[in-house]
């Protein structure tokens, strides 16, 4: 019995961390059709911001929940102004430039902090189910995923900014005619997406090994999820994250983590083959 509970917790953990990792990317891709291949490096920057400020004596919660998103959001803002804004509508070029950017960020971080692994201790401690151990942090991550989902949903649905953002997403020319400046909407959307990604990096910092190259492990997974999810930011990302997170954890439980990832990938290819427009393109049309 206890073993099933533990597997269920693992699955919950897989789903919630995948959702957190993908949310920022889904916002940037869904709203602006920019493929940000530096997504993994934004995660890495969030993790580094957390570790470095925590090791400098900042409270770990503040480091994770405030410093990481603020820092990465600012970085995102600068990158949007200096690079991304020249590339709207040039999809392939934006992929190339952000890939170059990701190499550049890895290079810079390696030069400053060296190619060594950093880390912070996991807060909150653990509990045991039967003879198995688990940590409260897993539950906290799941809670954060729910909170982020609620925040994004309510901002998008009930605020003026959300309304303008959705309008610009649907039809930039029409929004511009009505007095909205699409460039500014894109700028803030990119910064918000970057900040959410930084938050994800911060939240995952205590449970992952932090190296300059860590982003590579996330970027492919995040893309599979966003692409598999389709155009709807929340329902698409959530459904794809649930599917892939569950497949990954269950596969890893029965075989090894490596084959868990292979399974996810196979599932993703089959999914894209069957539903070329993603899960939300088929089942949640028009939803957020």
């Amino acid at each position, binding site marked *: 019995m206890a073993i099933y509970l533990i597997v269920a917790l693992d699955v919950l953990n897989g789903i919630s961390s995948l959702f957190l990792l993908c949310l920022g990317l889904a916002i940037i891709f869904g709203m602006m059709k920019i*493929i940000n291949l530096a997504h993994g490096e934004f995660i890495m920057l969030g993790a580094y911001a957390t570790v470095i400020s925590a090791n400098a004596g900042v409270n770990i919660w503040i480091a994770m929940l405030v410093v990481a998103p603020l820092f990465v959001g600012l970085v995102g803002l600068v990158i949007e102004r200096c*690079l991304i804004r*020249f*590339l709207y509508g040039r*999809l*392939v*070029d934006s*992929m*190339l*430039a952000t*890939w*170059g*950017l*990701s*190499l*550049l*960020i*890895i*290079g*810079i971080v*390696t*030069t400053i902090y060296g190619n060594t692994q950093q880390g912070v201790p996991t807060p909150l401690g653990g509990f045991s189910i039967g003879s198995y151990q688990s940590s409260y942090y897993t539950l906290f991550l799941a809670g954060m995923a729910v909170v982020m989902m609620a925040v994004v949903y309510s901002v998008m649905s009930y605020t003026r900014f959300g309304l303008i953002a959705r309008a610009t997403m649907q039809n930039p020319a029409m929004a511009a005619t009505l007095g909205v400046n699409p460039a500014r909407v894109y700028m803030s959307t990119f910064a918000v997406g970057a900040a959410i990604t930084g938050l994800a990096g911060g939240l995952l910092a205590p449970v992952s090994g932090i190296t300059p190259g860590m982003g*590579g492990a996330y*970027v*492919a997974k995040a*893309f*599979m999820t966003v*692409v598999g999810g389709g155009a709807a930011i929340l329902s698409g990302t959530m459904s794809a994250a649930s599917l892939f997170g569950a497949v990954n954890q269950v596969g890893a439980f029965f075989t*090894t983590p*490596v084959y868990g*990832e*292979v399974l996810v*990938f196979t599932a*993703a*290819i089959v999914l*894209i*083959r069957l539903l*070329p427009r993603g899960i939300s393109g088929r089942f949640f049309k028009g939803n957020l």
Partner: protein
Amino acid sequence: MTIRFRLVAQAAAVLIAIVAIVLIPSVIELFAMMQLTLFAAMAVLALSLAFIWGFGGILSFGQTAFFGLGGYAYAISAINFQDSTPSILLAIIVPALFAAILGYFIFFGRISDVYLGVITLTVTLILFNCVNSTSGDEYRIGKALLGGFNGIPAVPTFNVPFHPDQVLSPEQSWWVTGGALLGIFLLLRLLLSLPAGRVIVAVRENEVRASLLGYDPRKVKLLTFILSGAIAGFAGALYVNWGAFVGPTIFSLSLSAEIIIWITVGGLGTLLGPIIGCVLIEYIVAYIGSQQALNSNLVLGAVLVVFVLLLPKGLVPTARDLLMRLVPASKPKAQHADDHAPPPVAASRMAGAE
């Protein structure tokens, strides 16, 4: 600039390239020649992506998947057969089959460009992870131990076909590698000038129009993808022959990125540009590796960003445009989107072949 003049110029360029390949071992030192052999093997890889990306319009972020599969297929069968002849064939067939399966899913699923990039990228990562986790005695294929992260050392290098005891010397290896580069360059050039090549470019330009004219874009793209996978696999065999070693880093993302950088720097939509870009960037990377101040990721990333923003066409097309402007055109000539080399390009091709 009649057609005959262009033919003569191209034939002369090919001749000079052949002479250069033959003479190089007697002109330069062994170390420089080994480095050139590596560059030539990499340039074959560059050609494979230049072909599908520049002419087929398919941006594969995971060209190293085929490169690595070719390398591993060569290494494993060379160790088992102790003869490079069937191994080179396998290094071409295995990646081509893999490309066929993967391409079927991608193109017959009508997956758009972006998703294609994502899928190829992920395949590469998965292969890297899989091969990386094969350390231990239980992972062996025939006599070949896969070796996980440590890779497969002491792979037999090329021998004279069907004579396993006559191993090629470094000079002969260079002739094979340089000759293969020239051969594949000419093969692709020939293909692109045939009707089949026109169809490939037509599909890149406008899929709907091509299919209205009776071609099946899915099939055309799949065949292009398979051919490119086969070339990349062959490049993998050449690469393993150079180093007598293959490891999982052959699948690494940074190498995938490097191929794309070669083409962006050299010029998309040409066959010569990627070769030049490859040699140039590989030379820079080798130079960075020999000193400590700069990190190669940093330089490569900066180069890619700068080229995408400021020189999106790449070196060769930009140089060609400049030359065309300097040389007053006697006749208004139609600028082809694909690379039908006017003489200036033919002249600089020799530099690429060297």
